[in-house]
């Protein structure tokens, strides 16, 4: 049979006949992955009792409202206070160090090298992260939600029906999208830039080259969609727009 020949036997399709154990029942090794950055992390690390209410309040108000940058700065200050000795001059922390201290605050650790894309290449707990107010799936308009919404727009290009359907981005393209997503979430541009540089350094540390293709495109996050404003029951009908 010629290469890729097909005679009705499933194993012969596209040259599969030559491959032992590659029939339709061969284990795929399917992984049910969960985006670590949206998973609540149980903490055994006691939080500074005085700081906790401040952070919780920031988490509640840090939506797309005036003053969001100030709120983000407070979160960053708090994150720095958690760092202890840490690494001088960095704005990010390893997820495993940051997440426990944020438990119950309404702020979550946000992986910059998204775990759903890089989880098999960069250990989850080592992934450089920023504290982000809100739940990435449910807290519509929160910084964490907005950062992921921005990344979802990027990844959608590569998913079924996207403009670059089936393709994969390079590591450099992902970093560019990450920088944009942080700014879309209200992170000051200089902080976003530095955080992205730290994510790039981590990629390099794990042998990932900027021009290399990224194997994994994360599955859809299925974020809660913003509700459309509805007219009150007795509101007058909206006049039709003519010749817009």
């Amino acid at each position, binding site marked *: 049979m*010629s*290469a*890729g*020949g*097909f005679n*009705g*036997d*499933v*194993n012969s*399709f*596209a*040259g*599969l006949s030559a*491959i032992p154990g*590659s*029939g*339709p*029942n061969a*284990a*795929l*090794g*399917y*992984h*049910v*992955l969960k985006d670590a950055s949206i998973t609540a992390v149980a903490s055994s690390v006691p939080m500074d009792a005085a700081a906790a209410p401040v952070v919780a309040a920031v988490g509640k108000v840090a939506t797309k409202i005036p003053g969001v940058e100030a709120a983000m700065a407070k979160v960053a200050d708090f994150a720095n206070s958690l760092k202890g000795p840490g690494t001088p001059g960095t704005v990010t922390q390893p997820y495993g160090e940051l997440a426990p201290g944020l438990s119950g605050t309404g702020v979550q650790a946000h992986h910059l090298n998204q775990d759903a894309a890089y989880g*098999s290449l960069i250990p989850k707990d080592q992934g450089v992260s920023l504290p982000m107010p809100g739940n990435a799936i449910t807290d519509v308009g929160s910084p964490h939600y907005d950062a992921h919404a921005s990344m979802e727009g990027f990844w959608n290009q590569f*998913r*079924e*029906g996207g403009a*670059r*359907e*089936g*393709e*994969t981005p390079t590591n450099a393209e992902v970093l560019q999208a990450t920088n944009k997503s942080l700014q879309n979430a209200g992170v000051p541009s200089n902080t976003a830039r530095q955080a992205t540089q730290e994510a790039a350094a981590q990629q390099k540390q794990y042998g990932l080259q900027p*021009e*290399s*293709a990224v*194997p*994994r*495109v994360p*599955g*859809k996050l*299925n974020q809660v969609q913003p509700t459309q404003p509805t007219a009150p029951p007795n509101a007058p009908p909206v006049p039709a727009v003519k010749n817009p």
Partner: protein
Amino acid sequence: MTLRPATLATLEHFKKADWFVRVGQNLVDSGNITVPITIVSSWAEAIQHCQDSEWEWLLNESANIYRERLAKVAQKEFNTWNEHIRAVKEFSGPLVKAKLAPVQKEHDLPPKVESTLRWIVTMTLTEAEYAHITEPGYLTKLSFWIVNGHFPCDWKGEFPNGNLIIY
């Protein structure tokens, strides 16, 4: 970019096959397949299934698993993935559209049916491009059902346990 012989052969099988001729019918020849199969009986059911987010997840994850395997054994070759994808899409897109046209006209199918088939066929052809490096993945196996006149449209249960749903 010129397609490899294995890819051209696979493309020929897709072209020669009579798509959708066995939709809703019981399996005539299931070969050595032992995976549990559930057959749905109408396009309406098939459409509902193929819009399931779990199916979309499975199709995406299957591509991820294949690409991870390929990148692990041949990162340099994997870096040309997009060139191969773009090359095969010149054929897979028009092929799916042409094969789907008769049933599309009759059943007014949503775009999701076309994009599902395009994803499976595109990935199958791209996996054939790399067949000299690593074995094809699960999406190639799903193509078996397309060339046998069915429409694979969902999976129920936690993979790899569970049922493949086909029309």
